[in-house]
């Protein structure tokens, strides 16, 4: 362990914690000690952790604010669910079906990230935030007027006028995307194990990225764009790299989300502006640049409102109080000073220990 780089050691700790949580959760499920509520919430926790990891790469390492990660999630979710619906019946292996849906969802989300990035990442300032915000809203509205049906005489697509397509379910025709009704009867392919695997893969990707030469270039751009440019770093290329990967991970979260519920609609609550902000809250509270922090924040803030169901209406109140106190704990001068004091005393102890050894 001593030969390991500090960052690698840190990454191992993150993997270890996740593995531990996974094992504990699995044991609880297998022994029947976990409530239905908790079992139901495990996949959403994985979804939000994934998206938070993706956004953290963008906000924490690239230093660009994205307010449209719910939009990328939406793209991933709809493309993934669409693929599953298309191939359902042709491919019967669930794992294979999910993998294909995942690949399609991730690629499409990355593609949209790329398209959004082409004009915007060349600019300085807050443009990315504005454009991604618009992107998220546009995607949601496009999906709400998009009608695609699988009919006996081929695929039919309509914009706005869904009534123009006649679907007779009795002869095996079906809606794939039905406007505001979205995609329905999606098979349940997501589960906690798949979610955890995706988180591990996403962490593996982002850890390797930030530790690599490209990662250092990305952070150099964040810290000082002019200096980075002056040493010959291709700004747009590296920004694009980080942003596209970030969008792709959000897309993976979307695919997982889509296969967890049998219905998928693009509403302001699940893919709207508020969700983007929610994910940003996970990232900010977990600590920008700390993937582990993002996962922990996403987990706590997803479980908490459900765990507090017993308190009925007060849970909203407690939830917001908790948000504020977490923020204060992380950023308020008094809390920061207190943390410094604690840190100093711990440091003293550990250094003394070191001397003894």
């Amino acid at each position, binding site marked *: 362990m001593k030969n390991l780089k*500090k960052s690698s050691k840190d990454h191992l*700790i993150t993997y270890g*914690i996740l593995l531990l*949580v996974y094992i*504990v*959760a699995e044991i*609880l499920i297998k022994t*029947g*000690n*976990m*409530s*239905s*509520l*908790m*079992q*139901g*919430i495990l996949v*959403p926790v994985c979804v939000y952790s994934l998206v938070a990891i993706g956004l953290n790469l963008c906000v924490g390492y690239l230093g660009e604010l994205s307010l449209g990660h719910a939009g990328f999630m939406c793209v991933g979710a709809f493309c993934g669910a669409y693929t599953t619906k298309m191939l359902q019946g042709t491919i019967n292996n669930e794992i294979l079906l999910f993998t294909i849906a995942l690949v399609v969802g991730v690629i499409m989300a990355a593609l949209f990230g790329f398209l959004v990035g082409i004009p915007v990442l060349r600019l300085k300032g807050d443009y990315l935030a504005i454009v991604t915000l618009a992107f998220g809203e546009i995607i949601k*509205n496009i999906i*709400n*007027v998009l009608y695609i049906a699988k009919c006996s005489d081929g695929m039919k697509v309509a914009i*706005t006028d*869904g*009534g123009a397509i006649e679907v007779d379910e009795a002869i095996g025709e079906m809606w794939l995307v039905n*406007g*505001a*009704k*979205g995609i*329905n*009867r999606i098979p*349940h392919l997501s589960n906690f194990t798949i979610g955890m695997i995706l988180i591990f893969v996403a962490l593996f990707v982002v850890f390797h990225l930030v530790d690599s030469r490209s990662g250092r270039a990305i952070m150099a751009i964040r810290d000082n764009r002019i200096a980075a440019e002056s040493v010959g770093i291709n700004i747009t290329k590296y920004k694009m790299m980080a942003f596209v990967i970030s969008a792709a991970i959000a897309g993976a979260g979307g695919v997982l*989300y889509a296969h*967890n*519920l*049998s*219905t998928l*609609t693009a*509403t*302001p*609550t*699940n893919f709207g502006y508020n969700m983007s902000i929610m994910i940003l809250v996970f990232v900010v509270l977990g600590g920008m640049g*700390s993937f*582990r*922090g993002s996962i*922990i924040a996403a*987990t*706590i803030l997803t*479980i*908490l409102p*459900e*765990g507090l*169901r017993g308190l*009925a*209406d007060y849970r909203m109140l407690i939830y917001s109080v908790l948000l504020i106190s977490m923020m204060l704990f992380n950023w308020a001068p008094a809390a920061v000073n207190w*943390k410094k004091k*604690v*840190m100093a005393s*711990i*440091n003293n102890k*550990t250094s003394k220990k070191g001397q003894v050894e």
Partner: protein
Amino acid sequence: MKSLKKLLSVALVGVMCVSVLAGCDSNTASGQASAGAATETFKIGGIGPITGGAAIYGTAVMNGAQIAVDEINAAGGINGYQIEYKFEDDTHDAEKSVNAYNSLKDWGMQALVGTVTTTPCIAVADYTAQDGMLEITPSASSTDVIVNDNVFQVCFTDPNQGTASAQYIGEGNLATKVAVIYDSSDVYSSGIEATFVKEAENQNFEVVAVEAFTADSKTDFSTQLQKAQSAGADLVFLPFYYQEAAIVLKQAKDMDYAPVFFGVDGMDGILTLEGFDTTLAEGVILLTPFAADAKDEATQKFVATYQEKYNEIPNQFAADAYDAVYAVKAALEAANATPSQTAQEIGNLAIPAMTTITVNGITGEMTWQATGEVSKTPKAVVIKDGVYVAMD
């Protein structure tokens, strides 16, 4: 700094683990296989939005069902057993709704009255089907809700409402040129719009304009109204909820456009909307199964109790929920269910029984088909002097 971070992460991981474990407490056991042999009450759950944008519907359902539960309990319960009723919030979100369902399952729910809104209902229906639980939704009206055999509706399906509205306008010769304004981002609204436009082809009127709005732009309808006006529509069909309809009526008045406005069951409630000038709704026709001023004894009793308890005139959602609870009662009685049975055992008995029962509720006399669809007659009412008056 690093040690601090370590300390912090250890602490936070601790919190995470605790919160993971938090749900795994005592009530787990009763919620699962052994639905409590000792329980002497039927546990009926409800799910719907009681916070957020759709809160008004969820609250109405919660209250309406509560009145029915209280009445049934006072009258001796179901098969001699009292009912315990618990309502969980889903904020009109599919994911939260499934969470709410799981939490009710942990509580030991044996039959579900819900969910209130369509999209969450589709998601929850999938789980109730897996668990074999009887689910009766008061108000989720899409046909996608009832694809599973265990789900039954108290409200009309969207296609039925669209078709019935078109037929009503056609047969009553209410108009020759009709404009439709609808919410394209809403399942309920776009579902009705689609079948209305389709059925209109068979009727003696012409649809001259179909204008959409979305949940993000539901505060200004002047563009849509202008298009309807310039297309010469003498009737405007408004298949959406009353909050938006109130704005439409106000804006139409402001631009001196006075066609006949025709609404569906979502329009019900407009007269009790706070700050709404009821003269604006004069002459509005709506298709609804429930009218709060109906003269029959059951309705009057329900309205009086609701007003006394919640200080509001109940809308159609409350009435549907009230009837849904009575439907559960009828099904459980027909199935001879006892509280000691699990949700699945009760479901196995009560789900087939649903097609045999007849419930004479405050939204009409109802029977159910095996598909889950309800059969009852739609009533059209017209608003005159601030009250509903039956059309015929």
